[in-house]
């Protein structure tokens, strides 16, 4: 893993330039960034599932997963829902603006455990961001995997993120793509219904399959129940855990859950691992 941070100061980010801003929904934008230092850009690598700490100087730092794929390294992508101080500041920025980036941090999706398997991706809302990195990753090495099913849902058609990806994947004959919304509108032609319900309707087999899920906690909770009904065992299900982070380095103490620091030991866990330490807090 490349360990970044100019000099020996682990808290100092690299400068990155915003090269593109894509409005995803009314409150979510995707940013494409490139390191200002070409040598850093050249040597940078990461794995799907890892995250970064992004700085808007003067406003602070916030944690987002890297939503692009390590198989497409000419730039990095991350997606931001406008909620707090740093995310508001990010949404004000344009192409050409400079921000800070530290990373990559955390563990990653276990590609070795996914190879040769049927893959089921279940995403909700902005939770598609970390899955998207992995989906692009496996599609770029398509022959290593068997059937790929992507189930993605959002509250309404206006809340669907990465519509350009959804379109590409639905046109891909090697991918089974299902898009659903909780509430449709007159132009909506996809499914209508909650992700866990649609998941049970579609009913993918758990045989030789691995499920990877990310989304709002309530969706994850019920999607996990549906997967259990479909026969998925806890070691066949992977998810990324959300917890408040600041340093990303396993020091500031914030993301501690049980004996783990989510930033260092996660954010990717199998359901089997999570069940061993997750408490009534989640």
């Amino acid at each position, binding site marked *: 893993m490349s360990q970044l941070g100019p000099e020996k100061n682990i808290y100092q980010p690299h400068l990155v330039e915003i090269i593109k801003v894509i409005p995803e929904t009314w409150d979510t934008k995707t940013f494409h960034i490139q390191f200002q230092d070409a040598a850093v850009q050249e040597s940078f690598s990461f794995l799907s599932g890892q995250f970064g700490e992004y700085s808007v100087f*003067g406003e602070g730092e916030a944690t987002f997963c890297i939503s692009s794929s390590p198989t497409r390294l000419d730039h990095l992508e991350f997606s931001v829902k406008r909620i707090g101080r740093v995310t508001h500041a990010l949404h004000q920025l344009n192409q050409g603006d400079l921000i800070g980036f530290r990373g990559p941090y955390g563990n990653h999706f276990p590609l070795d455990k996914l190879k040769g398997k049927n893959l089921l991706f279940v995403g909700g809302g902005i939770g598609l961001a970390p899955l998207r990195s992995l989906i692009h990753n496996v599609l770029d090495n398509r022959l290593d995997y068997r059937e790929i099913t992507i189930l993605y849902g959002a509250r309404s058609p206006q809340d669907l993120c990465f519509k350009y990806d959804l379109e590409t994947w639905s046109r891909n004959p090697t991918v089974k793509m299902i898009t659903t919304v909780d509430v449709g509108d007159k132009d909506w032609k996809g499914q209508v219904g909650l992700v866990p319900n649609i998941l049970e309707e579609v009913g993918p087999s758990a045989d030789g399959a691995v499920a990877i899920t990310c989304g709002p906690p309530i969706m994850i909770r019920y999607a996990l129940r549906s997967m259990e009904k479909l026969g998925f065992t806890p070691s066949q299900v992977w998810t990324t855990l959300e917890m408040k982070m600041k340093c990303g380095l396993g020091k500031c103490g914030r993301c501690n859950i049980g004996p783990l620091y989510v930033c260092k030991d996660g954010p990717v866990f199998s359901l089997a691992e999570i069940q061993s330490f997750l408490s009534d807090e989640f």
Partner: protein
Amino acid sequence: MYRKISKENLRKWLGELKARAAILAPAKERGLWSYREFGLQDFPLRFRNSRLPPKGLFLDPLRALFAWKSSGGSVQLTPLPPLNGQRILIGLKPCDARALRILEPIFTRDYPDVFFLDNLSRTLRLGQACSVLCTGSFCLEMGIDPQESADFDIFFREIPAGYLARVLTDQGRTFTEGDFFAEASAGEWDLARREMPEKKEKPLFRLERVPAGVAQSFPDKNFWERVSAKCINCGICTYLCPTCHCFDLGDLQMPGQGVRFRCWDSCAFPGFTKMAGHNPREEKWRRYRQRVSHKFNFFYQSFQSIACVGCGRCVVHCPVNLDLREVLVEVAR
């Protein structure tokens, strides 16, 4: 290796060291003990322990990490180096010295934190054996010996003629090579040991039962609600704790420039884990449970040491008299 030094020579020795290093020693100011620049004044008497732990000399309460300047769309980052210069910390107590040892692996593992580690390596740690047990303390229960410690460069015991010194590191050895010190024996060292006058017949709780006891109590909501009922979330227990190390990162913005800083934070505050959509520790009992569990169970699982030294600061200075010892007694039953 043991050495001894007279009170007069100690003063001369420190006077000589002062030319080479910054000496920090306990000083009483406005009724509060703290570690301050030593001016060769009379050696502090009746020093039990400092109000604030010495952790702030290593993990600064506020530390600027890097600076930026921005103009016309360009941004320039300047690393702010850790502080340097040899320091000698004297009068340090065995509990606080152990606390520094407990903190070290957090700042060493995976991503070494130069700000903390440089402060450690530039500080010679000179300790002094305690002559009394501090009010509220439970160091004995936590396995700390107020009269013996290997967590220093040099550890001193007072004797009528001056001090006996147990030299524990190579650096300590170089500093005690001069003529101010005389040879001493292990026998002399043992004779200088004092028993704590207030030592209880029986320990309050058995430490080896604590980690498992805390783990077992974790799902017991009623227990945590009861023991944290009077907590007012002021965070003073974490502020005064020699092992609490959670921190925040923030920005100080001025026109065209600014600094990213790190400052102490506290798991007692509701905002500590507040995220975009939810807060896993919105309720007070969850936060209190987290503090106790982190110190006595999670930290133990990660580092095989308990993140508490029994100094008693949190017990004595809690504004509502929430006594951690009572919680530990209960879980270790």
